[in-house]
């Protein structure tokens, strides 16, 4: 039997600031993998660059800490190579909603069977607190000393627009719920997206646990197949912030539809040996 500690790298302890929202996500990922009994050898966690993106280093799974904003295409490449693997792409909001935006969109649209979890702290953590795409209007940061004036990026609406087949939000202040959502996301066949409200205790004093705790509420008994309702809920923000699954439907994955990938994991498919007969085509 696996327990959550089996998924943690014993050599490297997390280097996040004490109280950082990323800890809850580390716990949620390891708990979810243990609950689903997925062998660590069959898990790839791919990340970008940022505080949150250090995640794979703290895990005892296969991990890849790649480029800023490019974790999603990398993760898709892993999945397309070996569809037997559980592939989790994990990064920050700067990483995923600035430089990685179009990868996010198109991978969701293709319905590649990966889980994409974003640690959304509304700032850049690692580069010392610049405004991120989800920074609320008025947020004062190093790059917005007079307060942010740009309409925040809406990850839930974006994911729905793109065609993600699983769209959820969770909160680092509610680990049990975060873990449950993670389990559902990993189990979901198709592109699963979780936006995790994850306070940065160092650079974002305004959007703290204390700010979010009274505002978040659990989505319960909502019809997760109702796109219009999910889309409406995506714009609910402020005093009432829904967390939970907004949308979940079944749609064939890219891997199901592609004429080569549908024949099974690419890594198990035989390599074509070129023969004289093949050359006849060029006569």
């Amino acid at each position, binding site marked *: 039997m696996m327990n959550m500690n089996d998924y943690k790298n014993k050599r*490297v302890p997390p280097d996040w600031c004490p109280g950082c929202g990323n800890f809850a996500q580390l716990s949620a990922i390891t708990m979810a993998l243990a609950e689903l009994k997925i062998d660590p050898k069959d898990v*790839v966690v791919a990340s970008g660059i940022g505080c949150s993106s250090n995640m794979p280093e703290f895990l005892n799974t296969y991990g890849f800490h790649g480029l800023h904003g490019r974790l999603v*295409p990398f993760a898709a*490449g892993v999945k397309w190579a070996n569809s037997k693997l559980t592939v989790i792409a994990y990064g920050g909001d700067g990483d995923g909603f600035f430089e990685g935006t179009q990868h996010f969109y198109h991978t969701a649209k293709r319905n590649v069977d990966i889980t994409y979890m974003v640690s959304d702290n509304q700032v850049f953590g690692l580069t010392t607190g610049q405004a991120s795409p989800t920074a609320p209007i008025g947020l004062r940061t190093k790059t917005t000393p007079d307060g942010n004036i740009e309409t925040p990026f809406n990850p839930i609406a974006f994911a729905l627009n793109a065609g993600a087949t699983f769209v959820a939000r969770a909160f680092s202040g509610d680990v049990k719920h975060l873990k449950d959502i993670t389990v559902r996301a990993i189990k979901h066949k198709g592109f699963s997206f979780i936006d995790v409200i994850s306070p940065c205790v160092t650079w974002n004093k305004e959007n703290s646990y204390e700010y979010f705790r009274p505002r978040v509420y659990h989505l319960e008994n909502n019809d997760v197949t109702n796109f219009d309702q999910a889309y409406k809920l995506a714009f609910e923000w402020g005093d009432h912030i829904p967390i939970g699954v907004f949308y979940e439907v079944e749609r064939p994955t890219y891997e199901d539809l592609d004429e080569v990938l549908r024949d099974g994991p690419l890594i198990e498919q035989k390599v074509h040996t070129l023969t004289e007969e093949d050359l006849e085509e*060029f006569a």
Partner: protein
Amino acid sequence: MTIMRQNEVIIRVAGAAGDGVQSAGEILVRTFARSGLYATSYNYYQDIIRGGESWYQVRASDVKVKNQGDGLDILVALNQDGVERHTNPDINEGGASPLGKDGIAIFDNSIKNYTKRDTNYCPMPLADIAAKYSKNTLLKNTVGLGAAIAASGIDFNIFADVIRDQFGKKGDIAELNVKAAKEGYDYFLANYKPLGKKFKFGKKKYMISGGMAVALGAVAGGLKMYVAYPMTPASSALHFLAQHAKKYGVFVKIPEDEISAINTVIGANYAGVRAMTGSSGGGFALMTEAVGLSGMTEVPLVIYEAQRPGPSTGLPTKTEQGDLNQVLGASQGDFPRIVFAPGDIEEAFYLTREAMNIAEKYQTPVFIMSDLYLAEHYDTIDSFDLNFTIDHGLRAKDNEQDYKRYLITETGISPRAIPGQPGNMHNEDSDEHNEYGDVVSDAVTNPQDRIRMMQKRMRKMDTYIEEMRPTPTYHIEDAEYVIIQWGSTKGTVEEAVDILRSKGIKIGAIEVKNVFPLNPDIGTLLKNKKKIIAVENNYSGQLSKYISAQFLVKPDLITKYDGEAFYPNALADEIEVRIGKKKEVIRE
């Protein structure tokens, strides 16, 4: 002066874009290939879908032809402009000479007001014959080709079969085309004199383009995934693989951009599947950050970089070798990389296949540098040697004790574990890391780890240099003068050497096939030569500068950057001037 050989024919089909010039040219190459002749081709076209001038040149012989040639025997002109332009001796289209006095110009007899020059004009009722069989004006080309086949003395039945294959799926249309072509063939023989060429027909050949050769080489080397964003001239490989995806079991995908493409294939290679991407300069520029990612994480990667003239979007349908600096400089920092530059279709196949093994063996990016000329021209081959063993390089055993992904070794190569493998879980990191893959880039940094890891990675280059094959040479043994060349200029340089040798000049050439790292044997080859001349299809002599820095030599530079490939006679003339055997170049 261009010498026309009895066992060689050069045909040019000229017209406006949209006239079917390219498919006509390809039909000719295939006809020669099936007849048992070697053929090669050159496609001169512009970046517009309709209108604009284009021509397609095919050179065929019973001995291997190494370039498109710069003479002309037969012109099939599809419009008046074509007749004027390609019979006008004052025009030197990118270096190629137009039809000479023995040449034959085939065109529709409705074209009348052209300037008469010293050439055999053969007007024919191309349109009238075509009209008997179809309303489609493209049939006119087929009639003209039939006449060209008659003029060059090729078996009509082979040509007819090629046409049938070309239009095969369209049933009756194929037969109508064959009949029209036969009328063109007969009309020519009834009214004009063929060239009287004498060929020794051999075994049938295969017809293949450089882009196809790269794609096939990759497949032969175990390719399972090709993810690329279209950009001329790399697209021919993408199209070919997409059309053969099912047959070869290769997953082919156009993603949202080149950045996605390269990161996706890095993901696949990381997961143990041979994957490749390709692009041209601008698209490759977007990939550069990820080239370093492959270098740092030590994930194997093969990149096909097909050059076109820059800077920026440059000349999209023309050829140049101007991206060497970009490929050598791609991505920040120092890390091992290997760059191949195939010189012809066969090398494109073999080098790409080898690159698949080399990338995995050295766990580092490997480039195949081509250019539009090599990528898009059709050539003939007898066959490929298909014996090859896929070598996955050094892999970790399952459940290694205390597995270290980046184990320090003498060769610089560490045993690789891939996801799904039991027991060897680890992290691969774009940040500097220690042997385990744990990050060492911040407060806990151990400078020793950084130094050891840099040295480990870079040691792969020393290991690779030891296994390099000797630099290919051409008539170097007794050469007083030597030409350095890389990539697709190979065939033209060799022919220039032949031309100069026939005049008693002791000259040879070396082909820089391993563009990076350079083979140390080049230093020896360049020793004690009277003169070293670098021939490059770019402005600044990018390879030449790099060779100078490495081997402390000072090559004289012959460059061309008008978007066209070199032509053998023009090049030979220029070389003669440079070595002081001729005062100046007088082109006829």
